[in-house]
Protein backbone atom coordinates (compact mmCIF):
# COMPACT_ATOMS: atom_id res chain seq x y z
CA UNK A 1 0.00 0.00 0.00
CA UNK A 2 1.34 3.44 -0.86
CA UNK A 3 0.22 6.85 0.28
CA UNK A 4 -0.03 9.40 -2.51
CA UNK A 5 -0.79 12.02 0.10
CA UNK A 6 -1.38 11.91 3.82
CA UNK A 7 -5.11 11.43 3.23
CA UNK A 8 -5.08 9.13 0.21
CA UNK A 9 -4.36 5.40 0.22
CA UNK A 10 -3.45 3.90 -3.13
CA UNK A 11 -3.21 0.15 -3.48
CA UNK A 12 -3.80 -2.82 -5.72
CA UNK A 13 -6.67 -4.89 -4.40
CA UNK A 14 -6.40 -8.43 -5.67
CA UNK A 15 -4.49 -10.20 -8.41
CA UNK A 16 -7.65 -10.34 -10.51
CA UNK A 17 -8.39 -6.60 -10.70
CA UNK A 18 -7.31 -6.46 -14.35
CA UNK A 19 -9.44 -9.42 -15.49
CA UNK A 20 -12.47 -8.22 -13.51
CA UNK A 21 -12.09 -4.78 -15.05
CA UNK A 22 -12.01 -6.42 -18.48
CA UNK A 23 -15.25 -8.33 -17.80
CA UNK A 24 -16.81 -5.21 -16.29
CA UNK A 25 -16.01 -3.31 -19.47
CA UNK A 26 -17.45 -6.17 -21.50
CA UNK A 27 -20.76 -5.87 -19.57
CA UNK A 28 -20.76 -2.16 -20.34
CA UNK A 29 -20.46 -2.94 -24.04
CA UNK A 30 -23.10 -5.70 -23.80
CA UNK A 31 -25.92 -3.77 -22.09
CA UNK A 32 -24.44 -0.55 -20.76
CA UNK A 33 -24.17 -1.90 -17.22
CA UNK A 34 -21.42 -3.44 -15.17
CA UNK A 35 -20.30 -6.81 -13.86
CA UNK A 36 -22.70 -6.99 -10.95
CA UNK A 37 -24.94 -9.41 -9.13
CA UNK A 38 -28.01 -9.16 -6.95
CA UNK A 39 -28.18 -11.20 -3.79
CA UNK A 40 -31.75 -11.79 -2.73
CA UNK A 41 -32.65 -12.70 0.85
CA UNK A 42 -36.23 -13.63 1.68
CA UNK A 43 -37.12 -12.85 5.28
CA UNK A 44 -40.20 -13.60 7.37
CA UNK A 45 -42.05 -10.64 8.91
CA UNK A 46 -42.09 -6.96 7.99
CA UNK A 47 -39.06 -4.79 7.17
CA UNK A 48 -38.00 -2.24 9.80
CA UNK A 49 -37.61 0.79 7.54
CA UNK A 50 -35.96 3.03 10.11
CA UNK A 51 -33.38 0.46 10.98
CA UNK A 52 -32.70 -0.28 7.32
CA UNK A 53 -32.06 3.46 6.75
CA UNK A 54 -29.66 3.36 9.69
CA UNK A 55 -27.94 0.31 8.19
CA UNK A 56 -27.52 2.07 4.82
CA UNK A 57 -25.72 4.88 6.65
CA UNK A 58 -23.73 2.70 8.98
CA UNK A 59 -22.34 0.26 6.40
CA UNK A 60 -20.09 2.77 4.57
CA UNK A 61 -18.83 4.04 7.93
CA UNK A 62 -17.89 0.52 9.04
CA UNK A 63 -16.64 -0.63 5.63
CA UNK A 64 -14.72 2.37 4.25
CA UNK A 65 -13.51 0.31 1.27
CA UNK A 66 -16.99 0.75 -0.19
CA UNK A 67 -15.89 4.33 -0.87
CA UNK A 68 -12.81 3.33 -2.87
CA UNK A 69 -12.39 4.40 -6.50
CA UNK A 70 -10.75 2.16 -9.07
CA UNK A 71 -8.41 4.03 -11.38
CA UNK A 72 -7.55 2.32 -14.61
CA UNK A 73 -3.88 2.16 -15.37
CA UNK A 74 -2.35 3.94 -18.33
CA UNK A 75 -0.99 1.41 -20.83
CA UNK A 76 0.92 -1.17 -18.79
CA UNK A 77 0.33 0.42 -15.41
CA UNK A 78 -2.00 -1.77 -13.36
CA UNK A 79 -5.36 -0.59 -12.04
CA UNK A 80 -5.19 0.96 -8.57
CA UNK A 81 -7.75 1.55 -5.86
CA UNK A 82 -7.79 5.03 -4.32
CA UNK A 83 -9.34 5.55 -0.92
CA UNK A 84 -9.58 8.97 0.66
CA UNK A 85 -9.34 8.70 4.41
CA UNK A 86 -10.78 12.17 4.98
CA UNK A 87 -13.91 11.95 2.83
CA UNK A 88 -17.16 11.46 4.77
CA UNK A 89 -18.86 8.09 4.17
CA UNK A 90 -21.75 8.35 1.74
CA UNK A 91 -24.89 6.35 2.68
CA UNK A 92 -25.67 3.41 0.43
CA UNK A 93 -28.51 3.89 -2.04
CA UNK A 94 -31.63 2.37 -0.44
CA UNK A 95 -35.09 2.11 -2.02
CA UNK A 96 -38.31 0.63 -0.71
CA UNK A 97 -40.76 -1.20 -2.95
CA UNK A 98 -43.91 -3.28 -2.57
CA UNK A 99 -45.76 -5.73 -4.74
CA UNK A 100 -48.90 -4.38 -6.42
CA UNK A 101 -51.37 -6.11 -4.13
CA UNK A 102 -49.57 -5.17 -0.90
CA UNK A 103 -50.90 -1.92 0.58
CA UNK A 104 -48.38 0.82 1.37
CA UNK A 105 -46.68 3.99 0.16
CA UNK A 106 -43.59 2.44 -1.40
CA UNK A 107 -42.91 2.29 -5.13
CA UNK A 108 -44.80 -0.57 -6.80
CA UNK A 109 -43.06 -3.42 -8.58
CA UNK A 110 -45.07 -5.96 -10.53
CA UNK A 111 -42.77 -8.84 -9.55
CA UNK A 112 -39.40 -9.28 -7.83
CA UNK A 113 -37.99 -10.52 -11.13
CA UNK A 114 -38.80 -7.21 -12.81
CA UNK A 115 -36.96 -5.29 -10.11
CA UNK A 116 -33.99 -7.68 -10.27
CA UNK A 117 -33.77 -7.18 -14.03
CA UNK A 118 -33.76 -3.42 -13.51
CA UNK A 119 -31.06 -3.68 -10.85
CA UNK A 120 -28.82 -5.94 -12.93
CA UNK A 121 -29.13 -3.58 -15.88
CA UNK A 122 -28.05 -0.60 -13.78
CA UNK A 123 -24.63 0.92 -14.22
CA UNK A 124 -24.04 0.58 -10.48
CA UNK A 125 -20.74 2.42 -10.54
CA UNK A 126 -19.47 5.00 -12.98
CA UNK A 127 -15.88 4.24 -14.00
CA UNK A 128 -15.05 2.43 -10.78
CA UNK A 129 -16.54 5.11 -8.50
CA UNK A 130 -18.85 4.24 -5.62
CA UNK A 131 -21.47 3.13 -4.94
CA UNK A 132 -20.26 -0.42 -5.40
CA UNK A 133 -23.31 -1.70 -3.58
CA UNK A 134 -26.97 -0.74 -3.12
CA UNK A 135 -29.92 -2.01 -1.10
CA UNK A 136 -33.53 -2.53 -2.18
CA UNK A 137 -36.39 -3.76 -0.07
CA UNK A 138 -39.56 -5.36 -1.39
CA UNK A 139 -42.57 -5.97 0.82
CA UNK A 140 -44.00 -9.26 -0.33
CA UNK A 141 -47.26 -11.05 0.32
CA UNK A 142 -47.95 -13.28 3.32
CA UNK A 143 -45.79 -11.46 5.85
CA UNK A 144 -42.41 -11.76 4.20
CA UNK A 145 -40.05 -9.33 2.54
CA UNK A 146 -37.02 -9.35 0.31
CA UNK A 147 -33.70 -7.65 0.86
CA UNK A 148 -31.88 -7.24 -2.44
CA UNK A 149 -28.21 -6.35 -2.27
CA UNK A 150 -26.83 -5.39 -5.66
CA UNK A 151 -23.05 -5.39 -5.73
CA UNK A 152 -20.20 -4.84 -8.11
CA UNK A 153 -17.78 -7.65 -8.83
CA UNK A 154 -15.01 -5.05 -8.75
CA UNK A 155 -15.09 -5.28 -4.95
CA UNK A 156 -16.87 -8.50 -4.09
CA UNK A 157 -17.60 -12.04 -5.14
CA UNK A 158 -20.31 -14.47 -4.01
CA UNK A 159 -18.32 -15.77 -1.04
CA UNK A 160 -17.45 -12.20 -0.07
CA UNK A 161 -21.05 -10.99 -0.21
CA UNK A 162 -22.13 -13.90 2.02
CA UNK A 163 -19.47 -12.91 4.56
CA UNK A 164 -20.71 -9.35 4.19
CA UNK A 165 -24.33 -10.43 4.82
CA UNK A 166 -23.25 -12.17 8.01
CA UNK A 167 -21.28 -9.11 9.11
CA UNK A 168 -24.13 -6.64 8.53
CA UNK A 169 -26.60 -9.04 10.16
CA UNK A 170 -24.37 -8.90 13.26
CA UNK A 171 -24.39 -5.09 13.03
CA UNK A 172 -28.19 -5.17 12.87
CA UNK A 173 -28.33 -7.10 16.12
CA UNK A 174 -25.53 -5.18 17.81
CA UNK A 175 -24.52 -1.72 16.60
CA UNK A 176 -21.16 -2.12 18.35
CA UNK A 177 -20.35 -5.45 16.73
CA UNK A 178 -16.84 -5.71 15.34
CA UNK A 179 -16.76 -6.20 11.59
CA UNK A 180 -13.87 -7.91 9.79
CA UNK A 181 -11.05 -5.60 8.80
CA UNK A 182 -9.80 -5.14 5.28
CA UNK A 183 -6.97 -6.66 3.35
CA UNK A 184 -5.24 -5.25 0.33
CA UNK A 185 -2.52 -6.80 -1.77
CA UNK A 186 0.76 -5.81 -0.12
CA UNK A 187 3.64 -7.78 -1.56
CA UNK A 188 4.05 -7.31 -5.26
CA UNK A 189 5.89 -10.09 -7.00
CA UNK A 190 7.82 -8.99 -10.06
CA UNK A 191 6.21 -9.45 -13.45
CA UNK A 192 9.04 -11.82 -14.42
CA UNK A 193 8.40 -13.98 -11.36
CA UNK A 194 4.67 -14.01 -12.14
CA UNK A 195 5.48 -15.03 -15.69
CA UNK A 196 7.55 -17.93 -14.41
CA UNK A 197 4.96 -18.92 -11.80
CA UNK A 198 2.25 -18.97 -14.47
CA UNK A 199 4.14 -21.42 -16.69
CA UNK A 200 2.06 -24.49 -15.75
CA UNK A 201 -1.28 -22.89 -16.52
CA UNK A 202 0.01 -21.26 -19.71
CA UNK A 203 1.14 -24.68 -20.86
CA UNK A 204 -2.25 -26.17 -19.96
CA UNK A 205 -4.12 -23.41 -21.79
CA UNK A 206 -1.85 -23.77 -24.83
CA UNK A 207 -2.89 -27.43 -25.10
CA UNK A 208 -6.53 -26.40 -24.84
CA UNK A 209 -6.28 -23.90 -27.66
CA UNK A 210 -6.96 -26.45 -30.38
CA UNK A 211 -10.37 -27.28 -28.96
CA UNK A 212 -13.63 -25.47 -29.52
CA UNK A 213 -16.01 -24.89 -26.62
CA UNK A 214 -19.07 -23.21 -28.09
CA UNK A 215 -20.94 -20.92 -25.72
CA UNK A 216 -24.47 -19.54 -25.89
CA UNK A 217 -23.12 -16.44 -27.62
CA UNK A 218 -21.27 -18.56 -30.18
CA UNK A 219 -18.05 -16.73 -29.37
CA UNK A 220 -19.33 -13.35 -30.52
CA UNK A 221 -19.63 -10.09 -28.67
CA UNK A 222 -23.38 -9.82 -28.24
CA UNK A 223 -25.54 -6.95 -27.16
CA UNK A 224 -28.64 -7.34 -25.04
CA UNK A 225 -30.14 -7.02 -21.58
CA UNK A 226 -29.14 -9.30 -18.72
CA UNK A 227 -31.99 -11.73 -18.06
CA UNK A 228 -32.40 -14.51 -15.53
CA UNK A 229 -34.53 -17.36 -14.31
CA UNK A 230 -34.61 -18.50 -10.69
CA UNK A 231 -35.86 -21.95 -9.75
CA UNK A 232 -36.03 -22.80 -6.05
CA UNK A 233 -36.86 -26.42 -5.36
CA UNK A 234 -39.18 -27.46 -2.56
CA UNK A 235 -37.72 -29.23 0.47
CA UNK A 236 -38.97 -32.53 -0.89
CA UNK A 237 -37.46 -31.92 -4.33
CA UNK A 238 -34.20 -30.79 -2.74
CA UNK A 239 -34.11 -34.05 -0.77
CA UNK A 240 -34.45 -35.96 -4.04
CA UNK A 241 -31.62 -33.82 -5.37
CA UNK A 242 -29.54 -34.97 -2.39
CA UNK A 243 -30.39 -38.61 -3.12
CA UNK A 244 -29.11 -38.29 -6.69
CA UNK A 245 -25.93 -36.75 -5.28
CA UNK A 246 -25.53 -39.75 -2.96
CA UNK A 247 -25.58 -42.05 -5.97
CA UNK A 248 -22.60 -40.09 -7.34
CA UNK A 249 -20.48 -40.12 -4.21
CA UNK A 250 -20.07 -38.45 -0.85
CA UNK A 251 -21.62 -35.10 0.06
CA UNK A 252 -18.33 -33.32 -0.75
CA UNK A 253 -18.78 -34.33 -4.41
CA UNK A 254 -21.42 -31.58 -4.63
CA UNK A 255 -19.09 -29.20 -6.46
CA UNK A 256 -18.55 -31.72 -9.29
CA UNK A 257 -22.17 -32.85 -9.26
CA UNK A 258 -23.45 -29.32 -9.86
CA UNK A 259 -20.82 -28.73 -12.52
CA UNK A 260 -22.01 -31.82 -14.38
CA UNK A 261 -25.64 -30.70 -14.19
CA UNK A 262 -24.62 -27.31 -15.60
CA UNK A 263 -22.59 -28.97 -18.37
CA UNK A 264 -25.45 -31.29 -19.32
CA UNK A 265 -27.90 -28.39 -19.47
CA UNK A 266 -25.47 -26.60 -21.78
CA UNK A 267 -25.05 -29.73 -23.88
CA UNK A 268 -28.83 -29.88 -24.31
CA UNK A 269 -28.67 -26.31 -25.62
CA UNK A 270 -25.89 -27.21 -28.07
CA UNK A 271 -27.83 -30.29 -29.25
CA UNK A 272 -30.84 -28.08 -29.98
CA UNK A 273 -28.54 -25.95 -32.14
CA UNK A 274 -27.36 -29.00 -34.05
CA UNK A 275 -23.94 -29.20 -32.36
CA UNK A 276 -23.83 -32.88 -31.48
CA UNK A 277 -20.12 -33.31 -30.84
CA UNK A 278 -19.01 -30.14 -29.09
CA UNK A 279 -16.70 -30.26 -26.06
CA UNK A 280 -17.64 -28.33 -22.95
CA UNK A 281 -15.34 -26.27 -20.78
CA UNK A 282 -16.40 -25.03 -17.37
CA UNK A 283 -14.49 -22.48 -15.36
CA UNK A 284 -15.06 -23.22 -11.70
CA UNK A 285 -13.78 -20.74 -9.09
CA UNK A 286 -11.04 -22.03 -6.79
CA UNK A 287 -11.20 -20.16 -3.52
CA UNK A 288 -7.85 -18.64 -2.65
CA UNK A 289 -9.10 -16.29 0.00
CA UNK A 290 -6.62 -14.43 2.16
CA UNK A 291 -7.32 -13.74 5.82
CA UNK A 292 -7.18 -10.55 7.82
CA UNK A 293 -4.71 -10.10 10.67
CA UNK A 294 -7.47 -11.31 13.00
CA UNK A 295 -7.80 -14.53 11.01
CA UNK A 296 -11.13 -13.71 9.34
CA UNK A 297 -11.55 -14.48 5.65
CA UNK A 298 -11.54 -11.16 3.81
CA UNK A 299 -14.84 -9.83 2.54
CA UNK A 300 -13.72 -7.55 -0.28
CA UNK A 301 -12.02 -9.92 -2.67
CA UNK A 302 -12.96 -10.44 -6.30
CA UNK A 303 -11.62 -13.96 -6.51
CA UNK A 304 -11.35 -15.08 -10.12
CA UNK A 305 -8.84 -17.89 -9.83
CA UNK A 306 -10.42 -20.58 -11.95
CA UNK A 307 -9.84 -24.23 -12.61
CA UNK A 308 -10.67 -25.41 -16.13
CA UNK A 309 -12.74 -28.56 -16.50
CA UNK A 310 -13.12 -30.10 -19.91
CA UNK A 311 -15.69 -32.73 -20.78
CA UNK A 312 -16.05 -34.34 -24.17
CA UNK A 313 -19.57 -34.69 -25.41
CA UNK A 314 -19.92 -38.44 -24.75
CA UNK A 315 -18.31 -38.16 -21.32
CA UNK A 316 -21.46 -36.39 -20.19
CA UNK A 317 -23.75 -39.33 -21.03
CA UNK A 318 -23.31 -40.81 -17.57
CA UNK A 319 -23.53 -38.40 -14.64
CA UNK A 320 -21.61 -40.62 -12.24
CA UNK A 321 -18.62 -41.15 -14.51
CA UNK A 322 -18.66 -37.46 -15.49
CA UNK A 323 -18.47 -36.49 -11.79
CA UNK A 324 -15.57 -38.93 -11.25
CA UNK A 325 -13.80 -37.43 -14.24
CA UNK A 326 -14.15 -33.91 -12.87
CA UNK A 327 -12.86 -35.04 -9.50
CA UNK A 328 -9.77 -36.59 -11.14
CA UNK A 329 -9.27 -33.41 -13.21
CA UNK A 330 -9.42 -31.42 -9.98
CA UNK A 331 -6.78 -33.59 -8.30
CA UNK A 332 -4.59 -33.24 -11.39
CA UNK A 333 -5.02 -29.43 -11.36
CA UNK A 334 -3.87 -29.36 -7.75
CA UNK A 335 -0.98 -31.74 -8.45
CA UNK A 336 0.26 -29.31 -11.09
CA UNK A 337 -0.55 -26.35 -8.84
CA UNK A 338 -2.74 -24.79 -11.52
CA UNK A 339 -4.64 -22.78 -8.90
CA UNK A 340 -1.45 -20.94 -7.87
CA UNK A 341 -0.25 -20.72 -11.43
CA UNK A 342 -3.58 -19.23 -12.58
CA UNK A 343 -3.42 -16.71 -9.75
CA UNK A 344 0.06 -15.67 -10.99
CA UNK A 345 -1.35 -15.34 -14.51
CA UNK A 346 -4.13 -13.10 -13.18
CA UNK A 347 -1.54 -10.96 -11.41
CA UNK A 348 0.24 -10.55 -14.73
CA UNK A 349 -2.97 -9.43 -16.41
CA UNK A 350 -3.19 -6.51 -14.00
CA UNK A 351 -0.48 -4.92 -16.13
CA UNK A 352 -2.31 -5.47 -19.42
CA UNK A 353 -4.93 -3.01 -20.71
CA UNK A 354 -8.30 -4.61 -19.92
CA UNK A 355 -9.64 -4.81 -23.49
CA UNK A 356 -6.43 -6.52 -24.56
CA UNK A 357 -6.86 -9.22 -21.87
CA UNK A 358 -10.15 -10.42 -23.35
CA UNK A 359 -8.78 -10.23 -26.89
CA UNK A 360 -5.86 -12.42 -25.90
CA UNK A 361 -8.08 -15.02 -24.22
CA UNK A 362 -10.60 -15.04 -27.05
CA UNK A 363 -7.87 -15.27 -29.67
CA UNK A 364 -6.45 -18.25 -27.85
CA UNK A 365 -9.84 -19.92 -27.33
CA UNK A 366 -11.39 -19.29 -30.73
CA UNK A 367 -13.57 -16.41 -29.60
CA UNK A 368 -14.74 -18.00 -26.37
CA UNK A 369 -13.99 -17.52 -22.68
CA UNK A 370 -15.70 -20.75 -21.58
CA UNK A 371 -18.79 -22.75 -22.53
CA UNK A 372 -20.70 -21.05 -19.74
CA UNK A 373 -20.15 -19.40 -16.38
CA UNK A 374 -20.86 -21.63 -13.40
CA UNK A 375 -20.54 -21.81 -9.65
CA UNK A 376 -21.88 -23.75 -6.69
CA UNK A 377 -21.74 -21.49 -3.65
CA UNK A 378 -22.94 -24.08 -1.15
CA UNK A 379 -25.04 -23.23 1.89
CA UNK A 380 -26.07 -19.58 1.79
CA UNK A 381 -24.13 -17.40 4.24
CA UNK A 382 -22.91 -20.47 6.16
CA UNK A 383 -26.45 -21.41 7.13
CA UNK A 384 -27.57 -18.05 8.52
CA UNK A 385 -31.04 -18.68 9.98
CA UNK A 386 -32.08 -15.30 11.36
CA UNK A 387 -31.18 -11.85 10.01
CA UNK A 388 -32.50 -8.29 9.84
CA UNK A 389 -35.27 -8.96 12.32
CA UNK A 390 -36.74 -12.15 10.89
CA UNK A 391 -36.21 -15.77 9.94
CA UNK A 392 -34.27 -16.27 6.70
CA UNK A 393 -36.49 -18.22 4.31
CA UNK A 394 -34.24 -18.24 1.24
CA UNK A 395 -31.11 -16.66 -0.18
CA UNK A 396 -29.27 -16.84 -3.49
CA UNK A 397 -27.26 -14.78 -5.97
CA UNK A 398 -28.24 -13.66 -9.46
CA UNK A 399 -25.09 -12.66 -11.34
CA UNK A 400 -25.22 -10.77 -14.62
CA UNK A 401 -23.02 -12.42 -17.23
CA UNK A 402 -21.24 -10.85 -20.22
CA UNK A 403 -21.20 -12.27 -23.74
CA UNK A 404 -19.23 -14.30 -24.47
CA UNK A 405 -20.04 -16.69 -22.87
CA UNK A 406 -23.54 -15.20 -22.75
CA UNK A 407 -24.98 -17.58 -20.15
CA UNK A 408 -24.29 -18.98 -16.71
CA UNK A 409 -25.79 -21.54 -14.39
CA UNK A 410 -25.39 -21.00 -10.64
CA UNK A 411 -26.39 -23.22 -7.74
CA UNK A 412 -26.84 -22.57 -4.03
CA UNK A 413 -28.67 -23.98 -1.03
CA UNK A 414 -30.55 -22.24 1.75
CA UNK A 415 -32.57 -23.78 4.59
CA UNK A 416 -32.53 -27.17 2.90
CA UNK A 417 -33.74 -25.87 -0.47
CA UNK A 418 -31.67 -25.80 -3.64
CA UNK A 419 -31.89 -22.80 -5.96
CA UNK A 420 -30.73 -22.74 -9.55
CA UNK A 421 -30.19 -19.42 -11.30
CA UNK A 422 -29.82 -19.27 -15.06
CA UNK A 423 -28.44 -15.91 -16.24
CA UNK A 424 -28.10 -14.95 -19.85
CA UNK A 425 -27.87 -12.10 -22.31
CA UNK A 426 -31.19 -11.86 -24.10
CA UNK A 427 -29.73 -12.12 -27.60
CA UNK A 428 -27.85 -15.31 -26.63
CA UNK A 429 -30.71 -17.58 -25.52
CA UNK A 430 -34.27 -17.79 -26.85
CA UNK A 431 -37.23 -18.63 -24.61
CA UNK A 432 -37.31 -22.10 -26.17
CA UNK A 433 -33.64 -22.65 -25.40
CA UNK A 434 -34.14 -21.58 -21.80
CA UNK A 435 -36.96 -24.15 -21.59
CA UNK A 436 -34.66 -26.84 -23.04
CA UNK A 437 -31.97 -26.17 -20.44
CA UNK A 438 -34.49 -26.14 -17.60
CA UNK A 439 -36.02 -29.39 -18.79
CA UNK A 440 -32.57 -31.00 -18.77
CA UNK A 441 -31.69 -29.96 -15.20
CA UNK A 442 -35.13 -31.05 -13.97
CA UNK A 443 -34.55 -34.37 -15.68
CA UNK A 444 -31.14 -34.77 -14.02
CA UNK A 445 -32.35 -33.74 -10.57
CA UNK A 446 -35.92 -34.97 -10.42
CA UNK A 447 -35.99 -37.62 -13.09
CA UNK A 448 -38.53 -35.76 -15.19
CA UNK A 449 -38.66 -36.48 -18.91
CA UNK A 450 -36.16 -34.40 -20.88
CA UNK A 451 -37.80 -34.93 -24.24
Amino acid at each position, binding site marked *: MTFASSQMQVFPFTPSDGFILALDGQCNRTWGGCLSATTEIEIKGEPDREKLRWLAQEIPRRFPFLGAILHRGVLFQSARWHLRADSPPVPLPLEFHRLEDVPGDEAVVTAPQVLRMRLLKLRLHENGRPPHLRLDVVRHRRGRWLLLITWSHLLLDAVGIELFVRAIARLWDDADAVVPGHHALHSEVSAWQQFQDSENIREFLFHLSGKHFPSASGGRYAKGDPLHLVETFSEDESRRFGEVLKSVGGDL*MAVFFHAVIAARAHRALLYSRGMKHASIMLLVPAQLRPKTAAGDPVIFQNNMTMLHYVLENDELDNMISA*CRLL*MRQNVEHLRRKHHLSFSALLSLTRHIPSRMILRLIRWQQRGELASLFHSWTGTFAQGIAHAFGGRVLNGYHIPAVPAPAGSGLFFSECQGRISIVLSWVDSCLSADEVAIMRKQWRHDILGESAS
Partner: protein
Amino acid sequence: MYPPTSQPADRTRNLEQIVLDVVRENLLPDLPADCATDADLFGAGLDSMGIMQMVLLLEERFSCTVQPADLTRLNFSTATALATLIRGKDGASNA
Protein backbone atom coordinates in the same frame (compact mmCIF):
# COMPACT_ATOMS: atom_id res chain seq x y z
CA MET B 1 2.29 -48.50 3.02
CA TYR B 2 2.24 -45.37 5.15
CA PRO B 3 3.98 -43.22 6.15
CA PRO B 4 6.30 -42.35 3.21
CA THR B 5 9.54 -44.29 3.35
CA SER B 6 11.51 -41.05 3.16
CA GLN B 7 10.43 -40.27 6.72
CA PRO B 8 11.36 -43.33 8.79
CA ALA B 9 11.00 -41.43 12.07
CA ASP B 10 7.27 -41.20 11.35
CA ARG B 11 6.93 -44.97 11.80
CA THR B 12 7.13 -44.57 15.54
CA ARG B 13 4.16 -42.23 15.66
CA ASN B 14 0.55 -43.19 15.26
CA LEU B 15 -1.23 -42.53 11.99
CA GLU B 16 -3.69 -40.04 13.49
CA GLN B 17 -0.82 -37.83 14.61
CA ILE B 18 0.94 -38.15 11.26
CA VAL B 19 -2.22 -37.13 9.43
CA LEU B 20 -2.65 -34.17 11.75
CA ASP B 21 0.93 -33.08 11.07
CA VAL B 22 0.37 -33.38 7.32
CA VAL B 23 -2.75 -31.22 7.63
CA ARG B 24 -0.86 -28.65 9.69
CA GLU B 25 2.16 -28.56 7.36
CA ASN B 26 0.15 -28.28 4.17
CA LEU B 27 -3.30 -26.90 4.83
CA LEU B 28 -3.88 -25.40 8.26
CA PRO B 29 -0.63 -23.91 9.54
CA ASP B 30 -2.44 -22.23 12.45
CA LEU B 31 -3.47 -25.53 14.04
CA PRO B 32 -2.09 -25.44 17.59
CA ALA B 33 0.74 -27.83 18.44
CA ASP B 34 -1.41 -29.55 21.06
CA CYS B 35 -4.43 -29.90 18.75
CA ALA B 36 -6.30 -33.14 19.40
CA THR B 37 -6.58 -35.66 16.59
CA ASP B 38 -10.36 -35.56 16.93
CA ALA B 39 -10.53 -31.76 16.60
CA ASP B 40 -12.96 -30.50 13.95
CA LEU B 41 -10.90 -29.63 10.87
CA PHE B 42 -13.78 -27.76 9.23
CA GLY B 43 -14.07 -25.60 12.33
CA ALA B 44 -10.34 -24.97 12.04
CA GLY B 45 -10.74 -23.64 8.51
CA LEU B 46 -10.68 -26.63 6.15
CA ASP B 47 -12.62 -25.50 3.07
CA SER B 48 -13.58 -27.04 -0.27
CA MET B 49 -10.20 -26.19 -1.76
CA GLY B 50 -8.48 -27.72 1.29
CA ILE B 51 -10.52 -30.91 0.97
CA MET B 52 -9.32 -31.52 -2.56
CA GLN B 53 -5.76 -30.68 -1.55
CA MET B 54 -6.21 -33.24 1.21
CA VAL B 55 -7.27 -35.79 -1.40
CA LEU B 56 -4.04 -35.13 -3.26
CA LEU B 57 -2.02 -35.44 -0.03
CA LEU B 58 -3.72 -38.73 0.83
CA GLU B 59 -2.81 -40.06 -2.59
CA GLU B 60 0.76 -38.79 -2.61
CA ARG B 61 1.77 -39.26 1.03
CA PHE B 62 -0.25 -42.35 1.91
CA SER B 63 -0.46 -43.99 -1.53
CA CYS B 64 -4.20 -44.54 -1.42
CA THR B 65 -6.72 -43.71 -4.12
CA VAL B 66 -9.65 -41.67 -2.90
CA GLN B 67 -12.95 -42.59 -4.53
CA PRO B 68 -15.98 -40.30 -4.95
CA ALA B 69 -17.80 -42.31 -2.27
CA ASP B 70 -15.01 -41.43 0.19
CA LEU B 71 -15.62 -37.71 -0.25
CA THR B 72 -17.88 -37.23 2.74
CA ARG B 73 -17.82 -34.52 5.38
CA LEU B 74 -17.52 -37.23 8.01
CA ASN B 75 -14.35 -38.73 6.49
CA PHE B 76 -12.62 -35.34 6.36
CA SER B 77 -13.87 -33.92 9.63
CA THR B 78 -10.95 -34.99 11.88
CA ALA B 79 -7.47 -36.46 11.65
CA THR B 80 -8.87 -39.58 13.33
CA ALA B 81 -11.53 -39.97 10.61
CA LEU B 82 -8.91 -39.47 7.89
CA ALA B 83 -6.66 -42.08 9.49
CA THR B 84 -9.58 -44.51 9.56
CA LEU B 85 -10.15 -43.82 5.86
CA ILE B 86 -6.48 -44.49 5.09
CA ARG B 87 -6.48 -47.72 7.13
CA GLY B 88 -9.57 -48.86 5.23
CA LYS B 89 -7.81 -48.20 1.96
CA ASP B 90 -4.70 -50.00 3.19
CA GLY B 91 -6.75 -52.99 4.23
CA ALA B 92 -8.57 -53.00 0.92
CA SER B 93 -5.34 -52.84 -1.06
CA ASN B 94 -3.80 -55.65 0.99
CA ALA B 95 -6.86 -57.86 0.69
